[in-house]
């Protein structure tokens, strides 16, 4: 009995007829946007304070080291131990920024909007992971490179530490990938930013404290081998041990690490586990 009187009027919206750049470009744009967001670019001034403050703290040892090289003609802090020395700053950066990357989209349930474009769940997760990894890598690689350039300019007696520099940049990439995958996986389990920050930092503090306590107790009781394994619980020491295995650099802890390919295998397993958790979390979020 009801008559269908509803009509859709063409009110003259113009259609987009330009080129469509497709999936790859969309994912790249998302990654770049996320990377800018991690450093607070394109966000409020307040959002810039913490990332840039932490980046400045990361630069401090490099600057001091160049000054030591220039004035005292001695080599300053070693490249391979930079990440270990600055691990607390890296962890705070990860904890404060990883939730920003994942929490708002989950909280406001806008994931379906992304997925209505050519972007797939894997593209989305990949873009976020790439952004966080790139941010952490920059955080480490920029001071290392500045220090290396400084070393070349100061021209200390003896050959430059090129091998150490390359080793530290490669392991900076590994640190960045490991921390980014763990951080994003942990942060994605809660849509609340504050709780995300707390859980990521809890993970870091917990692993580093456990590895420290077990190392101290095991070596005091004469279990030297087990004590070295306990060190690997701390993710930064895990990457440091991989660096030692790959490049033969001096271990940053003063003690050795367990020899062999085990630390590299553990590293890969942890990254794979974190990424599996992250992707399955997003598959669930996308389907709900």
């Amino acid at each position, binding site marked *: 009995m009801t008559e269908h009187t509803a009509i859709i009027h063409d009110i003259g919206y113009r259609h987009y007829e330009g080129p469509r750049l497709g999936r790859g470009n969309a994912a790249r744009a998302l990654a770049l946007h996320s990377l800018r967001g991690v450093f607070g670019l394109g966000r409020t001034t307040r959002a810039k304070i913490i990332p840039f403050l932490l980046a400045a703290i990361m630069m401090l040892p490099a600057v001091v080291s160049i000054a030591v090289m220039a004035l005292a003609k001695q080599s300053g802090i070693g490249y391979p131990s930079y990440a270990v020395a600055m691990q607390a700053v890296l962890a705070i950066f990860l904890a404060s920024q990883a939730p920003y990357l994942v929490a708002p989209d989950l909280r406001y349930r806008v994931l379906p909007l992304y997925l209505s474009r050519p972007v797939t769940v894997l593209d989305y997760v990949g873009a976020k992971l790439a952004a966080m990894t790139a941010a952490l890598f920059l955080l480490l690689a920029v001071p290392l490179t500045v220090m290396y350039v400084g070393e070349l300019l100061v021209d200390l007696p003896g050959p430059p530490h090129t091998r150490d520099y390359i080793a530290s940049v490669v392991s900076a990439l590994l640190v960045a990938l490991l921390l980014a995958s763990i951080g994003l996986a942990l942060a994605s389990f809660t849509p609340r930013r504050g*709780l995300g920050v707390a859980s990521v930092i*809890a993970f870091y503090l917990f692993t580093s404290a456990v590895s420290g306590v077990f190392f101290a107790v095991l070596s*005091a009781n004469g279990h030297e081998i087990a004590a070295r394994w306990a060190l690997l619980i701390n993710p930064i020491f895990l990457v440091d041990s991989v660096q030692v295995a790959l490049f033969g650099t001096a271990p940053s802890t003063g003690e050795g690490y367990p020899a062999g390919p085990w630390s590299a295998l553990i590293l890969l397993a942890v990254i794979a586990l974190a990424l599996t958790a992250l992707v399955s979390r997003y598959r669930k979020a996308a389907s709900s």
Partner: protein
Amino acid sequence: MNTVVADITYRAMLGRKRILLLVLLPLALIAVAGLLRLIGGSSEGTAVTLMKSFAVGTILPLLGLVAGTGVIAPEIEDGTIMHLLSKPISRPVIAFTKFVVAASLMALFAALPTFLAAYLLVQNESGIAYGFALGALFAGIAYAAVFLLLGVLTRHAVTIGVIYALIWEGLVGGYVPGARTFSIQQWAQSIADQVSSSAFFKADVSIGFAVPAIVVVTVAALLIAGQRLRSLSLTGEE
């Protein structure tokens, strides 16, 4: 103290994912103590190391952060604090009630597990268990008040709290002895040192400074938080 506000806050704290961190961290502490006992490290020195660097140095600030900011920051973040603030309850009373909730959670999830972990390792030896549990209790109350204030002051409360706990108490306190005087976890150690007679352990800050400092910091943080709640602005960043 307002029981309805307290009830709502308890439900918000215990009914969400927040409870996972509140339960997992103390469980992990007890598990580590059990593991240390298994591998034969149940000496007094081990117990003191575990308590100093792990229970008071790591778990306590983390729980303080989760409980202290958790009672108020999420409500401010999503704006639902409006419903609470528009009721005829004085704002300092709201702040105080939320503090009592956070402090009681700290007693349950921080001080009690600290006692259990130390007891598991060395029983009653030298009063280590009682000392650190008492230290964790009072320092936990101070952490709850300070982090509650941070939660009222800024949207980045957790990050700033982490920076305080890690950089100031951890890194700076590790190298600069003067910084230890103004660190809540050192005050916890002073109280622990007062109770315990262990030879493995000597606090850096005197008890005569630590106890008044805890009281002053807690009361001042609560008063400021109450005042700030009276003029809270919800127009947020982001």
